[in-house]
């Protein structure tokens, strides 16, 4: 898919590299959508996640809605075991801070790295619930 005119070719390359690195480190399929959402951002993000088909269970979808100023992270059933909601919330807050400063590409790259680092860490099973 062409990168549109939201990002320069260099920025788009950085995002693709971050996705590829995160996938290699965690085995999760990271997917980033930037653009307008039809209606509610969360519902649109869920639909996009479902559209990933067979890979959806191990997929992490990041939706960035620049006009509604919302970032949504959807983790699949399998991906949630590696990337719990608390880690996703931390990454989403970090990304939102960068986006508020106008840095879409940098915020995405950092957010993906954060989630990758969190998911690559072995889960601690003896702690209270993972959510």
């Amino acid at each position, binding site marked *: 898919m062409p990168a549109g005119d939201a990002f320069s070719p260099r920025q788009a390359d950085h*995002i693709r590299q971050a996705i590829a690195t995160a996938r290699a480190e965690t085995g999760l399929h*990271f997917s980033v959508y930037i653009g307008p959402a039809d209606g509610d951002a969360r519902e649109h993000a869920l639909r996009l996640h479902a559209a990933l088909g067979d890979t959806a269970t191990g997929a992490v979808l990041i939706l960035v809605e620049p006009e509604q100023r919302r970032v949504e992270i959807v983790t699949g*059933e399998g991906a949630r075991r590696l990337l719990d909601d608390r880690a996703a919330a931390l990454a989403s807050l970090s990304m939102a801070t960068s986006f508020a400063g106008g840095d879409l590409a940098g915020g995405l790259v950092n957010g993906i790295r954060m989630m990758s680092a969190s998911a690559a860490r072995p889960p601690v099973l003896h702690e209270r619930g993972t959510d």
Partner: protein
Amino acid sequence: MTPRRVRTGSKGLRERTVGERTVRKLATRTALGAACAFGTLVAAAGPALAIGERNDPGDGLSWVQTVLIFIGIPVGVFVVIAFLVYLPSMVRGPRYRPGRPWTSGSVWFGGPDDANSAVESVTTLPASTVEGGGASARW
């Protein structure tokens, strides 16, 4: 009475003598300075005097030259400065500004090849999505 008068007299005499000396010194310096200044002026005005002798001030500026000098140069300087100001943002590429309308369309990294039909084909959310989790944030 008498000592006081003598004192004032002698003081007045001394002041007058000093005053005369100062005035003379000042006059000498002024004359010297004026002579130097005049000499410098004459020397510096040499070319101008020469023009006067030849009685030929040269051609005036044509209107093209006038326009170039008084409009072309300022406009050129303006253009160069404006270019230097906008150069960094042109090099950096497009930039998102929160609160402005989004006109860049949509991008999907790591999405399905045929994105539109893939999204259209989703009628109900599968368990792999519903059973998952996630987070959201605003800015």
